[in-house]
């Protein structure tokens, strides 16, 4: 130890220290990264899950999606849509659909978590697809302002045109709409980005990386809890609700004043 401390003023000491530091951080990063990948692959299902899922599928889904999920004219093939897709569609109650329509709508969930997982197991056994996300990406830290700001920028570029800048949702063509994201769970937001349910485009992990997806979730949870800085939101629908308000309430007040101005005092 003494020999080491004597050499701390050696001209190459700084270089040696730097190399050591780089080695340690690099090594740690490699280990951590490897752990992440290992975790991502561990969402496996047992054979029992798959067979239970198949029974549920044949009983509840095969009418539209066909035996072995190969698709009919009433429903698309589910080969390769992945477990995330099933978890989103069934977990938000969109599937099974109540009736054919422009788009499947959110409604009370029909299957419990275990059944949903079994269905997901069966569908993911038919072909590779996005799996249910790791919980590490689903714990947004809304106090992390940098993540929230980055998520906000990504949201405005990729999502805001349909879902509205305040995530209040918006209309699409022929009865379809992008739903409001207020109160949607972290897992379902992530799965929607990864799978592109219905008419939503797919934002796969090469387009928006899992970390960026988490930033977007952080932003959404942040605006959900931080309230409106600009006063009454009126549904955050922009000129539609604001215009309606000022044309009715504002003009109403002006008309009331005009009537009062010209009326005779009793």
């Amino acid at each position, binding site marked *: 130890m003494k020999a080491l401390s004597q050499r701390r003023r050696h001209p190459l000491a700084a270089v040696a220290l730097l190399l050591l530091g780089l080695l340690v951080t690099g090594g740690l990063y490699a280990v951590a990264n490897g752990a992440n990948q290992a975790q991502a692959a561990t969402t496996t299902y047992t054979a029992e899950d798959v067979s239970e899922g198949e029974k549920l599928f044949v009983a509840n889904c095969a009418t539209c999606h066909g035996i072995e999920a190969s698709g009919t004219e009433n429903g698309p093939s589910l080969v390769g849509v992945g477990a995330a897709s099933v978890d989103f569609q069934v977990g938000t109650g969109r599937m099974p659909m109540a009736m054919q329509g422009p788009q499947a709508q959110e409604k009370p969930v029909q299957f419990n978590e275990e059944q949903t997982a079994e269905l997901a197991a069966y569908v993911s056994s038919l072909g590779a697809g996005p799996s249910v996300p790791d919980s590490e990406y689903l714990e947004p830290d809304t106090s992390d302002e940098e993540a929230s700001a980055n998520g906000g*920028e990504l949201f405005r*570029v990729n999502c805001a045109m349909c879902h509205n800048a305040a995530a209040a949702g918006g209309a*699409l063509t022929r009865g379809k709409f992008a739903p409001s994201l207020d109160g949607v769970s972290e897992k379902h937001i992530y799965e929607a980005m990864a799978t592109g349910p219905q008419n939503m485009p797919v934002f796969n992990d090469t*387009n928006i990386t899992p970390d960026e997806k988490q930033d977007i979730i952080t932003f959404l949870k942040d605006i959900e809890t931080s309230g409106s800085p600009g006063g009454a939101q009126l549904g955050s629908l922009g000129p539609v609700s604001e215009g309606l308000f000022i044309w009715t309430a504002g003009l109403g007040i002006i008309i009331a004043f005009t009537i009062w101005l010209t009326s005779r*005092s009793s």
Partner: protein
Amino acid sequence: MGDHSHGSPNTSGTVATAGQGDEEKFQNPGLPPHRPRLADTNPRAEKRAERQVASLFIVSIIGTIVFFIGYFSIHLDDASIAELRLQNILLGLGTAFAMLGIGVGIVHWAKTLMPDHEITEERHEIRPEEDRVIAEKMVGDIIEETGIKRRPLIRNTLLGAMVLAPLPAIAVFRDLGPLPGDTLRHTMWEAGTRLVRDPSGTAIKAADVTVGSAFHVIPNGLKDLPEHKLEEKAKAVVLLMRLNPEDLNPSPGREDWAVDGIVAYSKICTHVGCPVALYEQQTHHLLCPCHQSTFDVTQECKVIFGPAGHALPQLPIAVDDEGYLIATSDFKEPVGPSYWERG
């Protein structure tokens, strides 16, 4: 001017002249009888009205005080968003009530307490010929007194000054900028420019774009521009989508503009230039959020609904040696709304 008891519309010369030809069909009812107000007859009502007016003025005073409380008690530099919102409300409501209190108070005062007897003002008789002669004489006098006819030196220098005076405006308006020239026809895209993600600026591999994906794309190098970044971005933004190749129906000459079903279209609406980015991945429709123009990606973004004038321009793309997507040229037509010289 006189009050109701003296004035009578029928004494007006013009009305009499107009009515001379035929029998008068409608009797002029005159003004309704004067009806005294409550405050005119009842001293207690008068007192009450007085108090109402005074309290409206006090409302105005309170409004001004509220304004200054909001103005001085919340400091801009260390206020949270909630405090700023509170300050906005206080300033707004304070000013509103300060103004409204005075206005409403004065009107209420006039309506309840000030005298309200009717007054009639008779119309002047119209004397067209006389008036015209007087006006003519005034103009003649002005010309005569300025002496503009007798002093050609003054007249000519005045004319010269007035012709020259607007010329600086030409110089000033010219400084608003050079004419756009052909900049509306060109964007940053050129052969070999990589397609990169907005906002991160990372290049996109063709293999990254799975079927159903939509990427928001800017040209490589946009983020490093020293100036006019937003102007260039406003022209060059592109939406990248991947469809099944059999869903695309490229017209002759456009067969090699797509890569395995990956197509890139300008995001600028051809109506008034909003970003068209609402992509429905099942119907392959692109919807503009401003005026609902709808473009069909399977028909080279032809307009199928709404006010847009022409199809969205397509960016021809290819893959470079390293597998990244690149443009093979600029757009073949100007992006965005039509303009006069577009043809």
